[in-house]
């Protein structure tokens, strides 16, 4: 049966190629690249260990100096919105082809290329910080590539006990003593046998950003530069957080503390739909 599918697919692809090949000048689709810039304010983040002299230091609203050794987050459920309001979803139910782990330590992951975006003028982008609950099951069978990428030893974005993905993983240091800072987020939702969510915390956040310049997909393949300003982690729209023994290390998994970080980074859904994200530029 699998073979049969492949043959049908190759036939379809063949037909598609044949029909396309004439009109190179008028493409029906093109790429859109998302470029993630992880910053403290306007300063790009440079990672470093506890005693690093090159790492970018930031001071929170509460006056705590901090810097990071590791910054990772999952982007999924990407949708581009046309001027007329039409929403073009990009493989929103396929983590292998529609989700990515942005890892500050790996330059390749800072650009995410979306293929075959239909021609059009786009004025808004939506995406998820994290993985929406119905796909957040560590289902290796359905999404082997995303599972593998997220599970790599240098990535560690599996949240095993919750059988879901980590949505953000930030390791670093704070205060004059360079105490450990280790902030992980992820959902702990659990369904009953009927698929209704009956317990847990949803750490997924839907982000909506208006594009300052229309992204024109056609002969041009736009690049949308997105800023993720990690100053928001401790000094966000929702909470001003002072790190201490009870919230700087993974006991924030208790989710009480975790939710504050999640709200700061991804917005507290009703009030704030941008969190730490903003658009730097659109290059057509």
């Amino acid at each position, binding site marked *: 049966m699998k073979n*049969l599918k492949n*043959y049908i697919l190759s036939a379809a692809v063949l037909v598609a190629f044949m029909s396309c090949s004439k009109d190179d000048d008028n493409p029906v689709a093109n790429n859109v690249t998302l470029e993630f810039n992880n910053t403290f304010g306007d300063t790009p983040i440079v990672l470093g260990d506890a005693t690093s002299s090159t790492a970018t230091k930031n001071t929170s609203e509460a006056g705590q100096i901090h810097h990071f050794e590791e910054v990772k987050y999952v982007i999924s459920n990407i949708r581009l919105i046309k001027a007329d309001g039409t929403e073009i979803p990009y493989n929103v139910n396929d983590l292998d082809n529609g989700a990515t782990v942005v890892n500050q330590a790996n330059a390749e992951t800072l650009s995410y290329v979306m293929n075959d975006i239909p021609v059009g003028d786009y004025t808004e982008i939506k995406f998820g910080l994290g993985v929406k609950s119905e796909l957040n099951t560590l289902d*290796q069978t359905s999404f082997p590539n995303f599972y593998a990428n997220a599970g790599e030893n240098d990535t560690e974005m599996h949240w095993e006990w919750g059988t879901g993905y980590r949505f953000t993983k930030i390791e670093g240091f704070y205060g004059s003593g360079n105490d450990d800072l280790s902030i992980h987020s992820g959902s702990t939702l659990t369904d009953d*046998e009927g698929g209704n969510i009956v*317990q847990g915390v949803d750490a997924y956040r839907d982000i909506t950003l208006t594009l300052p310049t229309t992204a024109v997909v056609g002969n041009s393949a736009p690049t949308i530069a997105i800023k993720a300003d990690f100053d928001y982690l401790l000094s966000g729209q929702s909470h001003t957080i002072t790190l201490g023994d009870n919230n700087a290390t*993974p006991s924030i998994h*208790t989710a*009480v503390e975790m939710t504050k970080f999640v709200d700061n980074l991804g917005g507290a859904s009703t009030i704030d739909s941008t969190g730490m994200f903003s658009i730097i530029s659109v290059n057509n």
Partner: protein
Amino acid sequence: MKNIVSILAVIVLVTSCSNDDNYESTPFNNPELNISIPEGFPLLNNSFYTNKPTTFGVELGEKLFSEKRFSTNNTISCSSCHIQAHAFGDNNAQAIGIEGRVGLRNTPPIQNLAFLNFYNWDGSKLQLENQPLVPIITHEEMDSSILEVISKIENDAEYQDLFEKAFGDADITSERIYKSIAQFEYTLISANSKYDRVKRNEDSYTQIEAEGALIFEQKCASCHSSELFTDQSFRNIGFPLNTDTNEAGRARVTGAIEDYMSFRVPTLRNIEHTAPYGSFGQFATLRAVLDYFDNGVIEADNLDPILKDNNNRIPLTEVEKTSLIAFMKTLSDNEFLGL
């Protein structure tokens, strides 16, 4: 054009072949097991009804339960920690996975799970079918992945045969692995201890056991209630704290500060055989647990109201402790333990 013709030809070829795939297969005959529900036990978990134990489902689940290829280096299986003689728990303070890696918590026994609505110390899972993946992928346990497991066993003729008998064809899928293990676990019912026989008027307590039963009613049964000896609530009872920063008890799941360091009330069935006690094995003996309650537990904002109302203690005399332990030993089910 030539290509399309040849592709179409191949399609015809492939479809015409697939007809005889099942030619040799025997009729699918896999009767449901008759699980008898012990008198007075609570309702089954609803998931049971969508995954009822079958003859071959359980046989397959039992085999998978002891499959060492579940671990990345083929050294441990479920049954390495879930040992029958310990009510499918073990005697380690905290679970020990591959290469001697130490887990966060004490291995929970696997008994009467068909009747529970919350699994694990923190109730993170509500259906048994959703649990087997956790130890397979956890670094401190088996550190593997479900596709790695499937790739190791899918060419094993014995498994192909059992999957076919259990599910109608030889496809080895993650869902079938989880379901068959859950089916096996559903059959692990302990209800033939001395306590049960006394209830059925087939046996009688010694004097000290009878005294213990009375004290148990007064001082323990508000939490260790029902025939499962747990009310399945989550409580902070002021036990010594696990300082691992990953531990938060039930709050890890709910995010509610009032659940901080709360754990599911454990069953006391076969408790004689599941030492040490506590979420990370804080207590070596039952006596140590009772001494601790008697001396007073750690204060906490969300300490269980029953303890708060009693000065953070469960006062017990030495004689009462001895009789309570004698009563708790009547909860041992040697048939279930295979002793």
